[in-house]
């Protein structure tokens, strides 16, 4: 009887995990609905203007932390996002934003972020802010960033989260991409999330 109880409990746990919201949908990325908090921040955009999560509400926002002196991993992720968005029909693409948040505000001034993000497409925004705000936002999504030792020419490496956090138009955290997904997998997930978002009753 104890065995049976354990078995039933296990079934219940499995059901609880698989049967929650978006349960009918299959994702390549990780479903973080109800696990990660809503999008919230106060940062400076690529034009030097103060912006908050509300500024970008109504769109599907893809949040990514990085820095512009990052020649390898950051452009790799942003290039993939750019090509994924470029291949979506215009009617779908217009619902997406990419929020590139630089965790290197000392070097990444607004004009530099603007030139950097503009190179990927009009959907890309280059945000940054005070170290305090950046730490707060990183903590909110359970990640960190850090600076390596400066070399003789004051160059330094920045470590940062490799993940992409995807929020629905209401600002709710939905998906987490590790950065290892194929473009095809990201496309499928983005389109599915958009479909759910349009029919917003299924999202509540």
């Amino acid at each position, binding site marked *: 009887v104890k065995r049976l109880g354990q078995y039933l409990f296990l079934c219940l746990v499995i059901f609880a995990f698989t049967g929650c919201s978006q349960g009918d949908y299959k994702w390549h990325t990780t479903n973080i609905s109800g696990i990660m908090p809503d999008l919230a921040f106060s940062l400076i955009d690529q034009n030097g203007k103060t912006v908050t999560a509300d500024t970008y509400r109504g769109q599907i926002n893809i949040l990514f932390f990085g820095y512009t002196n990052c020649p390898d*991993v950051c452009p790799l992720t942003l*290039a993939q996002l750019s090509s994924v968005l470029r291949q979506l029909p215009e009617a779908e693409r217009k619902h997406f934003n990419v929020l590139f948040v630089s965790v290197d505000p000392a070097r990444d001034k607004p004009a530099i972020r603007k030139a950097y993000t503009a190179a990927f497409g009009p959907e890309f925004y280059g945000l940054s802010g005070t170290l305090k705000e950046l730490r707060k936002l990183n903590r909110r999504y359970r990640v960190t960033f850090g600076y390596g030792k400066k070399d003789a020419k004051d160059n330094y490496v920045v470590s*940062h989260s*490799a993940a992409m956090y995807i929020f629905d138009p209401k600002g709710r955290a939905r998906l987490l991409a590790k950065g290892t997904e194929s473009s095809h997998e990201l496309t499928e997930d983005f389109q599915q999330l958009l479909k759910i978002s349009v029919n917003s009753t299924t999202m509540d």
Partner: protein
Amino acid sequence: MKINTRSYKHNMSRLFFWLLLSLLSQNIYAASPVPATIKHAWIRLTPGNGPMAGYFEIVNHTDHNLILSGANSPAFGSIMIHQSEIHHGEASMHAITQGLAISAGGTLRFSPGGYHLMLMERKQSFTVGEQITITLMFRHHPDIHASFELKPIWFEEERK
């Protein structure tokens, strides 16, 4: 006669020189005159003055480990071999300072998210489509001059 003596001495010193060189370079020319070939070499062009990354594929034609020890180019003040890492979801990179081995007959790929040439201190302006020569240096082997094509920032290599 004087001339003959001089030419004899000259020939002897030349012979000595070649003997010495052949001793020193025994390993170099034993297997193949071209130790390696470079393929698919490109640079991701980023705006501003920050470092850029160079990628390529290197095929070792020798029957022993080939050590890539560094690189240089008049187009950059400094070039380092770097490796990106994602550890517990956090991306970082570090310099490879002790050289990088390509196994006998093997191929090593420098590709986004992994090994890359960290191209620092731009000495000129760059445009997409332009070819830049970068010299790759090897331990105990002659340099290889490779031509790298500048690709747009959004360029995506086919993932393998």
